[in-house]
């Protein structure tokens, strides 16, 4: 597949600027670049979702020319997409999502052969190692399962697939699942399928990519075989300078001192995958939480958000027992929770300004009146401080790239200066530079007494800022790591130890 000279201009942004891009059969071509560099836009142009500017060059697949802006033709040519937003419909079942826009198997009298459809769906889910009832609604899935379903959907008619484009498929996956995805990718490339792989995680690129293309501000700034790029060079190409990978190692010292006041206390909580989980979080510490898929890591924020019902045990926030927590109850206690599902982090139709102030409008309110002028000023300052691009607080959130939406979400919670902040995947889909910035901001807030619970499948995050790491296995806190034990290798070993951890 190849495209030449593609440009795409949104009303005020040139998202792609004369990009050439090609993929060969059987290779993995990594597409990387900072947040807002145009990766998703390129993928969407290829999907026929965006029409590129009129002066763009030809788009060919296996020598045949394809029209732009025609998703059906693209599908027929054997291209499959896993978009950053996954594109699953919450209210439909797994089976219906898998067949979305496609034909159902029918018997006599147009009757849908549900039995056969179910078997087919189960087979598709088995490709990604999911053993779920095809009648389950997508709304009930964990973020990890959602990603897997999206992958299953793209792969289901394996024979017709020529090229698969994955836009940050691993942002929501823990490392165990990434390994599985890579096995799947290798199996496909062995059959001559081409892969386009978008990710911010350089170690993944190192492991899986044959070739690399780096975008910066919509332009190709480097392309070639993976072996020609070492990590330092990639980082400097992405960031546009020789800044290098700067994770805030200094932050950890700052978080060593912490108070005694317990801000969050799980007392034998059974909920979702959690089985009698016990732990305490105190003022000023950053506690990482790690675990495999299905270990229950994400049920901790889930419980606090009221998305996972507590079956037994007690949740104590700031000394108060909260039986069925939800965000409106937590806020007066100074606790805030950032959810991990992408679509729940912000409200796409509202502007950046409206999103960033939504969590607490009181400081902007006099009597009944919402002081819009002050809100604008504050939003402008936040956009500046969190380096949200573009710096236009009046843009709808939907027009930002995935990583920038993430920054807005983190900014929203840091703005209200909580005492306890639970972050579920805060650096998901954020580029190397922005990741360091986000962690830095979190760490400096912790230095001033903020307690942070960091649920991240990115072990580098945990290594960079945590003073303690809880490893969840089988629904309970199995190990607690401190000091020198907090490193990628030990955390991974602890996650995998005792294979009793259920793979669900």
């Amino acid at each position: 597949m190849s495209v030449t000279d593609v440009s795409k201009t949104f009303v005020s942004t040139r998202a792609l600027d004369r990009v050439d891009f090609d993929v060969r059969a059987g290779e993995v071509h990594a597409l990387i670049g900072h947040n807002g560099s145009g990766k998703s836009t390129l993928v969407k142009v290829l999907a026929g979702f965006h029409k590129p500017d009129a002066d763009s060059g030809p788009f060919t697949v296996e020598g045949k020319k394809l029209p732009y802006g025609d998703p059906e033709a693209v599908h027929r040519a054997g291209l499959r997409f896993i978009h950053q937003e996954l594109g699953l419909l919450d209210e439909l079942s797994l089976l219906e999502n898998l067949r979305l826009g496609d034909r159902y198997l029918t018997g006599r009298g147009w009757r849908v052969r549900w039995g056969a459809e179910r078997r087919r769906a189960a087979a598709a889910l088995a490709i990604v190692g999911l053993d779920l009832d095809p009648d389950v609604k997508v709304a009930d899935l964990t973020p990890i399962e959602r990603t897997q379903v999206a992958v299953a959907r793209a792969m289901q008619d394996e024979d017709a697939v020529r090229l698969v484009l994955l836009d940050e498929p691993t942002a929501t996956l823990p490392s165990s699942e990434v390994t599985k995805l890579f096995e799947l990718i290798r199996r496909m490339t062995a059959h001559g399928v081409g892969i386009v792989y978008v990710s911010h995680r350089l170690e993944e690129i190192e492991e899986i990519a044959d070739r690399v293309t780096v975008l910066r501000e919509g332009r190709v700034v480097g392309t070639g075989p993976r072996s020609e790029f070492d990590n330092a060079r990639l980082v400097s190409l992405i960031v546009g300078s020789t800044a290098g990978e700067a994770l805030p190692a200094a932050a950890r010292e700052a978080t060593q001192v912490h108070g005694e006041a317990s801000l969050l206390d799980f007392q034998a909580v059974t909920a979702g995958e959690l089985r009698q989980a016990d732990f305490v979080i105190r003022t000023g510490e950053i506690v990482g939480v790690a675990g495999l898929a299905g270990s229950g890591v994400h049920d901790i924020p889930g419980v606090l958000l009221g998305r996972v019902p507590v079956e037994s045990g007690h949740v104590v926030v700031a000394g108060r027992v909260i039986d069925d927590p939800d965000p409106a109850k937590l806020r007066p206690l100074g606790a805030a929770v950032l959810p991990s599902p992408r679509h729940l982090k912000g409200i796409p139709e509202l502007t950046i300004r409206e999103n960033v102030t939504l969590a607490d409008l009181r400081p902007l309110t006099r009597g009944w009146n919402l002081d819009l002028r002050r809100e604008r000023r504050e939003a402008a300052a936040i956009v500046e401080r969190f380096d949200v691009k573009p710096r236009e607080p009046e843009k709808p959130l939907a027009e930002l790239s995935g990583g920038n939406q993430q920054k807005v979400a983190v900014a929203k919670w840091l703005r209200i200066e909580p005492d306890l902040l639970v972050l579920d995947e805060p650096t998901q889909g954020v580029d190397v530079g922005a990741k360091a910035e986000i962690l830095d901001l979190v760490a400096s807030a912790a230095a001033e007494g903020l307690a942070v619970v960091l649920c991240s499948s990115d072990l580098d995050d945990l290594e960079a800022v945590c003073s303690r790491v809880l490893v969840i296995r089988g629904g309970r806190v199995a190990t607690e790591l401190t000091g020198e034990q907090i490193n990628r290798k030990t955390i991974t070993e602890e996650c995998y130890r005792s294979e009793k951890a259920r793979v669900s």
Partner: protein
Amino acid sequence: MSERKRSASFFERYGGVVLLAGMIVLFAVTLPGKFLTYDNLIGVVSNQTIGGIVALGLLLPLAAGVFDISIGGVMTLAVVLVTWLFQTTGGDMPIPLAILITLLAGLAAGGVNAVLVVVAKVDPFIATIGTSSVFLGLSEVIANGETIAKNIPHAFTSIGRTEIFEVPITTVYLIVLALIVWYVLDHTPFGRNLYATGAGREAARLSGVPTSRVIFITFLVSALFATIAGVVYGARLGSGPPNTGASYLLPAYASAFLGSTMIKPGRFNVPGLIVALFIVAVGINGLQLYGIPFWVVDTYQGLVLIVAVVLARTKTRKAKRGKATTPGAAQAEGVPA
């Protein structure tokens, strides 16, 4: 206001205003001495007051992402109840008391809707279709199938008929209520929470927005406004015919939806609603002045309703499509048949 300037073009925002201005110019030129007179223009405005009040109240549930179909039923109930209170007491009931009772009854009706939707978690559309029918039934019981016209005190009818500096008082009501709703939607935290709830209920809840409370209140407000409209209607007419409200339901939705495509496209907003109301009203007025048969007016109104909703739909669809990040859309179009 400079909000959302970049995301919507000038034409998207002000196309409706241009259309309205065009109609006014057209009628002014082709109907000299008839259209552009004070009496005619003030007539156009005052004809819109009742429907405008109903539509203003409707903006709140719509902005919060829920439908309230019962406003016609609530309005009917208000018209019948307020006039009946005078009739049964032989015109002796103090006017403020009669109005207060009616407003409370209207709030109670809204409360029933709110409880059904928020507490019992019934789909708002279904719930309010059901209650609407119940409210109409209640009105019939009260009115006993007839128009209530006895013992309506003069002081009550003056509430709907007085003029202030030659401006009908009902027009003043509309202006005041419009200003209040505009202020609440655009300048209060409640308004912001309302739009957030409408644009993404679960995401808003997770940001700490009390979405259930917001939705509860919107049902109270839409019922209250329908009740106010009913009281004003009864006062203006001086009697209480059964089933008047039903004819206000569809126009209210049409102007709310048409209004949501203008000024602040993609949001249910007060200035847009006002422009939409007058696009309909001026058109009808012009046709009447041309002396066109009465049935054309009905047909015109029906056509405007349909065009309004189609326009609102395609515009929001286009807005969604532009925002490529709408998840469902992205994939639905990526996986063809």
